[in-house]
């Protein structure tokens, strides 16, 4: 049960989409440009009602596509105002080229992405293929386990984006979070507005006394340096994100980090996961812990920048690790989170943990506590050296083959 952690909040029941719109109401960005798509549609419906009722002073651009949504958001941000958008799945795919332009122009845009499978076959339910596909686009990516985390992450994202000059994508699992009602602590408007502060861009197009050209052709003698600046900003963003999380804790009570460790202190085995299924894993771990089984969880919150150094240290002494990806890279090799975990460990010289790759939940396929318990059994066998289950291939959970 969530209890208010600060005197600045009240408890309400809201879905992920409702809380995203609520956070946007409090942030009150100058411009929102968005296009509806299941399961993110409610966010723009609710927000455009706020605009229609005069509850926010924001301008809402009802664009004709997601490509234009991101284009207009980029343009508004470049013009010198706070700009936000939201989308999902095919919509995010349609924005693809613009995602790289948002980060390339160092624009502090915040986008809410509701995770949904990618066509074909068309499917409106949750997996992480959409945002995982955007993982190298220069956007900071923050994943949310619950409605509360969606809310807290969006508020922090505004600060993170403006301080790092990188766009930030906050995700929630389609339907599982976007449409499920939870008890959530909503902070009062003044506290949120005070936390995010006024936006004061350094250089912007509408500053007509200082005209400048943005979006130049950048050839062999400059492009590489400009791209390196983004890579560098992404590395530096880790410290900024932690600092802002600490400030958030001081203001509102809840603590956040780049990733969450659950029962990891004495763990022999670990599961690494991202998004709402972390809750299911925690339930399974609680049951296993009651049988004195030493298993823990690492739930990644900030996937980009990837917290590789700390994660490597925290996994160094684990004997067997299962990495659960909710997307399949279809690469003939491994999926995104597994690849990041393995390279993080190996680059630190840590080669002892046995690591097994699982793909689960594509297109909304359910994952249950029983599935997690089965993973534990495999982890245990691997740890004891009894079952040499093949760690060189991807394993699929709850799939008919």
């Amino acid at each position, binding site marked *: 049960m969530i209890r208010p952690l600060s005197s600045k909040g009240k408890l309400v029941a809201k879905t992920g989409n409702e809380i995203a719109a609520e956070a946007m109401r409090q942030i009150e960005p100058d411009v929102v440009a968005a296009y509806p798509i299941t399961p993110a549609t409610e966010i723009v419906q609710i927000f455009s009602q706020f605009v229609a009722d005069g509850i926010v002073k924001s301008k809402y651009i009802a664009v004709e596509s997601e490509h234009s949504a991101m284009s207009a958001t980029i343009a508004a941000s470049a013009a010198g105002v706070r700009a936000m958008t939201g989308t999902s799945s095919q919509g995010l795919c349609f924005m693809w080229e*613009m995602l790289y332009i948002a980060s390339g122009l160092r624009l502090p845009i915040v986008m809410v992405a509701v995770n949904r499978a990618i066509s074909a076959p068309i499917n409106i339910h949750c997996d992480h293929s959409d945002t995982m596909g955007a993982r190298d686009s220069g956007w900071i990516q923050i994943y949310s386990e619950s409605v509360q985390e969606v809310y807290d992450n969006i508020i922090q994202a505004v600060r993170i984006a403006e301080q790092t000059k990188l766009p930030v994508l906050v995700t929630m699992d389609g339907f599982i979070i976007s449409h499920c009602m939870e008890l959530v602590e909503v902070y009062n408007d003044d506290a949120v507005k005070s936390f995010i502060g006024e936006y004061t861009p350094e250089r912007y197009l509408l500053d007509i006394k200082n005209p400048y050209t943005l979006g130049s052709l*950048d050839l062999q003698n400059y492009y590489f340096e400009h791209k390196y600046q983004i890579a560098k900003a992404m590395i530096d963003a880790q410290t900024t994100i932690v600092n802002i999380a600490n400030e958030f804790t001081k203001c509102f009570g809840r603590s956040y980090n780049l990733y969450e460790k659950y029962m990891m202190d004495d763990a022999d085995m670990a599961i690494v996961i991202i998004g709402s299924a972390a809750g299911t894993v925690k339930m399974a771990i609680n049951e296993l812990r009651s049988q004195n089984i030493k298993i823990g969880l690492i739930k990644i919150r900030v996937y980009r920048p990837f917290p590789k150094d700390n994660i490597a240290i925290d996994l160094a002494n684990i004997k067997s690790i299962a990495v659960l990806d909710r997307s399949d890279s279809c690469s003939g090799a491994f999926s995104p989170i597994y690849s990041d975990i393995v390279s993080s460990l190996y680059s630190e010289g840590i080669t002892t943990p046995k690591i097994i790759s699982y793909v689960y939940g594509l297109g909304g396929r359910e994952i249950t506590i029983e599935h997690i318990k089965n993973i534990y059994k495999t982890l245990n066998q691997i740890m004891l050296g009894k079952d040499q289950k093949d760690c060189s291939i991807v394993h699929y959970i709850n799939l008919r083959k």
Partner: protein
Amino acid sequence: MINLQTLSTLQERFTGGHRLCAGCGAAIVARQVLLAAGKKHVIVISATGCLEVSTTIFPYSAWKDSFFHSAFSNAAATCSGIEVAYKSLKEKGKLKEDIVFITFGGDGGTADIGLQALSGAMERGHKMLYICYNNEAYMNTGVQRSGMTPLGARTTTAPVGRIQQGKTESKKDLTQIMIAHNIPYVAQTYIGNWHDLITKVQKALSIYGPSFINILTPCRLGWGYPPEETINIGKLAVETCVWPAYEVENGIYKINIKPNPPKPIIEFLKCQDRFKHLLKPENSHIIDKIQQDIDHKWCILQKQEWLSSYPC
């Protein structure tokens, strides 16, 4: 009303030193459009294309006003975002100055890959002037056919070969597409008549709401003619009625120039390499078809002018 004396006193806002070709029509468009803006504050938006890549090679810029480019298909959506940000800051009292927004796109960035974004922006009614510098093919990538390439023209993707004589389809009528959006001001103009071009830009900038000007912009490389002929070829387009100079203001048509009689289209075709193959006797039927199409459309346009001024 603009005159040369006034124009000569205005500061150039699109400067020399850019990398566009000698004789490039797009450079003339950019220069004249910005001169037409007079002393107004302007923000320029551009689609990817010749004009953009040749004028903004980092760290240089030919633009004295703020200039923004992000991608190919989205110039109108991009202008939407800036215009709405402007309105937001104005309403909040954070910005005092009045600014006008001018968007440039080639025919590809406007009428093919950019048509959806343009249509959306026009329908939403943003206050912007959208200029299509229409050189009738994808020139920046090396002269490929566009939806605006005319029948019979040779391009690198509508080549002349053993069984094909250039583009086999007619072009779409972008100006009529924009008129169908019921925006306050739509016009066609051309290189070779600075007065017509500047007057139309000034009219467009004085209107509250979206406006669109389609400018036939000869490309010496893609059309195949000596660079000093750009102005003459622009004029020939209007004199042959292949490109009528007209405007539609709040639904009322006005044909600005009525050649009497129009010159035969062969006069326009024969001075450009892209049509050279049509001059062979076996291709005379293509020229006949082009002439018939021009005559038909010219006739329709005159009827539209008459009809739109007729009281309901």
